[in-house]
């Protein structure tokens, strides 16, 4: 974990409610895809946890949805604004377990961490396949960016306005030869995936957080291997350890 000041480089709408923000700063504490950062916002007591979508030595990319006052405020920030951010939080995805052909399944604001994960797996010479789920075509984002990585991308929308009509699980059921799965998204989706998948996998969870770095026990969950803090021992849990 590192606390440092980042500078907003750009902050643009991808959809009506989802924005992409690129920040410049010290990313050295980020060690894995699936980790998150915790952002201090003027006038708000708690920080806001947001997944790392991508990063390099000097910049960090996040994608976030406006759901309340904090993300609303975030959406108003212009280039040049400085933000106090804790980076390198959480365990992140373990790519060593992926096998050659892992499935990456992102639902809604669970899509962002899949992006860096896909890049990492490609770098390791693996052949990830991506499934992105949204409610409607209008709410879909980052599909082209995933395609640009050269990976197969399936899209499911609940209303059928784009790709398969239905849920990501409907797509998963049509796929056969995957070796592992990684996912992030709303809890009902995670549960459904855990049921429908035929391999092991890693699932990323959300919880209301006090600190985001393991100090307060605000975000605990019970697993088969004992209590875990979503912020520190997660957000990524293994399918096998989860108590639904």
């Amino acid at each position, binding site marked *: *974990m590192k*606390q440092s000041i980042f500078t907003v480089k750009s902050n643009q709408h991808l959809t009506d409610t989802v924005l992409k923000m690129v920040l410049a700063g010290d990313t050295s504490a980020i060690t894995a895809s699936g980790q998150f950062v915790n952002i*201090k916002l003027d006038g*708000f*007591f*708690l*920080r806001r946890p947001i997944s790392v979508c991508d990063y390099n030595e000097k910049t960090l990319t996040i994608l976030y949805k406006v759901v309340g006052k904090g993300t609303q405020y975030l959406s108003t920030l212009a280039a040049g604004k400085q933000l106090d951010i*804790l980076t390198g939080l959480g365990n992140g995805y373990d790519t060593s377990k992926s096998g050659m052909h892992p499935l990456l399944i992102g639902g809604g604001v669970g899509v962002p961490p899949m992006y860096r994960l896909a890049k990492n797996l490609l770098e390791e010479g693996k052949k990830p396949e991506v499934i992105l789920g949204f409610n409607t075509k209008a709410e879909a984002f980052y599909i082209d960016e995933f395609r640009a990585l050269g990976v197969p991308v399936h899209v499911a929308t609940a209303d059928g306005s784009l790709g398969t009509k239905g849920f990501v699980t409907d797509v998963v059921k049509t796929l056969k030869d995957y070796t592992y799965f990684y996912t992030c998204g709303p809890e009902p989706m995670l549960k459904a995936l855990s049921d429908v998948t035929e391999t092991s996998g890693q699932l990323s969870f959300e*919880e*209301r*957080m*006090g*600190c985001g*770095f*393991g*100090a*307060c*026990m*605000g*975000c*605990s*969950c*019970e697993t088969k291997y004992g*209590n875990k803090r979503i912020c*520190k021992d997660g957000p990524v849990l293994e399918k096998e350890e989860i108590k639904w």
Partner: protein
Amino acid sequence: MVNTKVTLSGITLDNPVIPASGTFGYGYEFAELYDINILGSFSFKGTTREPRFGNPTPRIAECTAGLINSVGLQNPGIDKVISEELPKMRKCFHKPVIANISGFSVDEYAYCCERIDKEDQVGIIEVNVSCPNVHHGGMAFGTSPEAAAEVTRAVKAVTTKPVYIKLSPNVTDIAAVAKACEEAGADGISLINTMMGMRIDLKTKRPVIANKMGGFSGSAIFPVAVRMVYQVAEAVNIPVIGMGGVSSAEDVIEMMLAGATAVQVGAANLVDPFACKNIIEDLPRVMEQYGIKDLNEIIGGAHK
């Protein structure tokens, strides 16, 4: 050079700044960021007889200038704290720690305190009487002078270390509770614990916290904490550890003027992991700004 050393029941601290129980874990996460031996001491997570997962999640709700938590005393239980955490803590913190003990019956308090009393590392036992008394209708021990005194007596009977009773602010007359604890033999008073608070989610129209209510803390509660520290310092002759909303060196001085000998920092650690370090580093400069050479001179200064 200014003097920041203060003494609690014979234990001299390099400075009065102490992370508050439940907001600093066992110190490990912070020790990765800075040398936590700069702290006056630290109060580790509340410990109970049995291991506890605590309350269901969500356990956290944001508020203006604070948060509500309903962690519910998640901890591995006294056995593991003694066998696993204390040895690990010793590696990153070389000063006496404050053992924060909770219980749901007088027996449980006494049991845990007796166990922890044997540990060298522990300088002070801080007894959190904000827990519900399961044998008596679930009202917190700390809401009645008699119940708080009963816990104090039971704990004092089985311990040799200084015992500080940590009071709940959710009471009509905090001075009466403090006095009862003093008469029952307490060596000091810690206050305040969190204030009972609640938030409701407009989207779901349900309480944000799974347990409905929880403990409210952070800078918002500072004026209530200062008032209670002032009232208690006036009522008792034992040292007071002040806390509640402290987030700057100025706040530390204000608490001490109200009557605190040392000061704990809680919620501030969660939003800024360097909060205690920053406060300790700022303290000498702020002391000079207000013409304070020795912190001991200002303890209770506002009472004069």
